[in-house]
């Protein structure tokens, strides 16, 4: 074998690091280089004069005739197409190819030149990526479907629990009117506070499910109705269900607040409920609300152990629960929903917690 020269074009074609094919305008092979012959296992006699289609797989043949060939005629080139060439042993060779059409002065086709590179590994990698992607897509769709089903179930359950609860509440009210002894009053008060707690849990669950199913917290804003009475009532109810605990209120709401009053009530109830549950029972829970400088500000503070550092970042996440005894545990949704209500009002809830006191502050812009 002679030593190849650097400018030997014949050798450059024949022993190129890629396969070369030259086709006549009728699609028949005019030349094929040695590299390609080596890869496919054919001899030149077997290929020259045959249609290029003949050494492609069925898919490749169809693809070439209805897509590559027309595009070559239209734009003169077609780069980076994947194609499977049939080897002499009948096995497909996965390749990537570029094609270029040579034309005469009038634009009539003279030949097509093809450069082909083996791409077995690359094609394998691609097809594995695709399979993984397909599997992930299906898996995701399944997860979403299951998740939606679960949340719909929660919503229905929450809804269905309300009726029995309303009955108990009504019954407790009736009993309360007829209660005579202290003991009876105590029991009725406990019933009512328990009912309230359950109602709160169910409301939180429903809000959460609704939020996840895409409804979000919808607001029914009203700028004219006063806010103070609602706050007062919410806190009164909490006082009722937390006997022995002191909850102080201080309001200076000087301008109308354009908000959804019942939602703000819910927010306050969640914050104050938390303060009562987690705060020191020997110190009062303080609630301050005011309007100033274009914002409505509401702060709920309690004494007792500060919130641990690691809990601070997770406070507003759904299902995050602090450490309290089981009978006082909620679902971990109260703060999450409170923050969602704040967000719906274009506001924020922030928290600061020291050994002296823990304060949750809700701020929203006045419209």
């Amino acid at each position, binding site marked *: 074998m002679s030593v190849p020269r650097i400018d030997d074009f014949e050798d450059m074609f024949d022993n190129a690091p890629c396969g070369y094919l030259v086709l006549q*305008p*009728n*699609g028949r092979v005019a030349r094929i280089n040695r590299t390609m012959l080596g890869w496919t296992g054919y001899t030149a006699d077997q290929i020259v004069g045959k*249609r290029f*289609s003949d050494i492609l*797989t*069925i*898919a490749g*043949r*169809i*693809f070439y*005739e*209805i*897509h*590559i*060939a*027309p*595009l070559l*005629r*239209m*734009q*003169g*080139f*077609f*780069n*980076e*197409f*994947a*194609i499977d060439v049939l080897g002499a042993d009948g096995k497909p060779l996965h390749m990537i190819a570029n094609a270029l059409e040579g034309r005469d002065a009038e634009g009539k*086709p003279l030949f097509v030149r093809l450069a082909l590179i083996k791409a077995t590994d690359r*094609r394998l990698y*691609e*097809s594995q*990526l*695709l399979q993984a992607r397909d599997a992930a897509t299906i898996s995701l769709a399944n997860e979403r479907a299951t998740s939606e089903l679960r949340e719909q179930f929660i919503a229905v359950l929450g809804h269905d629990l309300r009726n029995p609860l309303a009955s108990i509440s009504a019954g407790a009210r009736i009993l309360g009117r007829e209660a005579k002894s202290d003991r009876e009053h105590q029991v009725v008060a406990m019933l009512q506070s328990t009912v309230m707690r359950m109602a709160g849990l169910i409301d939180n669950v429903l809000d959460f499910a609704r939020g996840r199913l895409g409804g979000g917290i919808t607001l029914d804003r009203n700028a004219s109705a006063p806010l103070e009475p609602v706050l007062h009532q919410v806190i009164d109810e909490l006082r009722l269900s937390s006997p022995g605990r002191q909850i102080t209120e201080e309001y200076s709401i000087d301008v109308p607040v354009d908000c959804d009053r019942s939602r703000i009530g819910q927010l306050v109830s969640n914050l104050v409920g938390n303060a009562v549950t987690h705060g020191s029972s020997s110190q009062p829970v303080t609630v301050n609300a005011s309007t100033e400088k274009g914002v409505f500000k509401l702060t709920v503070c309690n004494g007792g152990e500060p919130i641990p550092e690691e809990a601070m970042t997770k406070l507003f996440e759904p299902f995050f629960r602090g450490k309290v005894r089981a009978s006082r545990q909620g679902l971990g949704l109260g703060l999450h929903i409170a923050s969602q209500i704040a967000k719906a009002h274009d506001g924020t809830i922030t928290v600061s917690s020291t050994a002296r006191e823990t304060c949750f502050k809700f701020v929203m812009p006045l419209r």
Partner: protein
Amino acid sequence: MTDGVSGKIEMNVTARNNVRVRGSGDRAMMFAHGFGCDQNMWRIVEPAFEPDFRTVLFDQVGAGGSDLGAYDKTKYATLGGYADDVVEIGRELGLKDAVFVGHSVSAMIGALAVQKEPGMFGKLVMIGPSAKYINDGDYVGGFGASQIEELLQFLEANHMGWSAQMAPMIMGNADRPELGEELTNSFCRTDPEIAKAFARVTFMSDNRADLPKVDVPTLVLQCSEDVIAPQAAGEFVHRSIPKSQFVLLEATGHCPNLSAPDEVITAMRAFV
């Protein structure tokens, strides 16, 4: 506008199928591309008829500049769905006694459209038609059932390979600046998922029974050495359509409208 039957809002047909109307004349000529391409494949043949005909070009839904959002799996599960689109375009443009030029599978779509709306098309030109691609007893379609299955499975398993081919990102060729910006707009774009479905509809189709009912003059243009629609298939189409003529072109391959446009134009002129 609402469709009383399904309640869906009717799509603007011109937008859905990227319809272009050119030329001028008493009669109209509608060009329908086949699988694997879009209306750009008529770029050499269509202009030749603009002086004498109102020419209509469009993209099948899923190809070229058509509205991919309009693709409906159920509707386009048969060639009849595509024929409905053709009829809708014809109605929108008020076509009567027009010429329908269908390449490859669109030749059969034309045969169906002719029957759905008699009078809309007065003449049919079929380029590289095949009534059925899979062999059946004595009938030669050119492919064995297992080969078509191999093709469809290849599309399933290798769809990136196919989609890299079928939806090419055609970059401007830096070596050939004279090719210009236009070519970066990738001719023959098609959505890979829709292409898979269209391939199945096309290659599993059997329109042999529809052909005897085509009662308009039909020109069958057959390429020499067409591996997709071999001569036996073209001859079958010719034999099955009562008022048909058969012309064997010297052109080879499946797209003579691109590889031998002069031959196609000449044959068509003699017919229309």
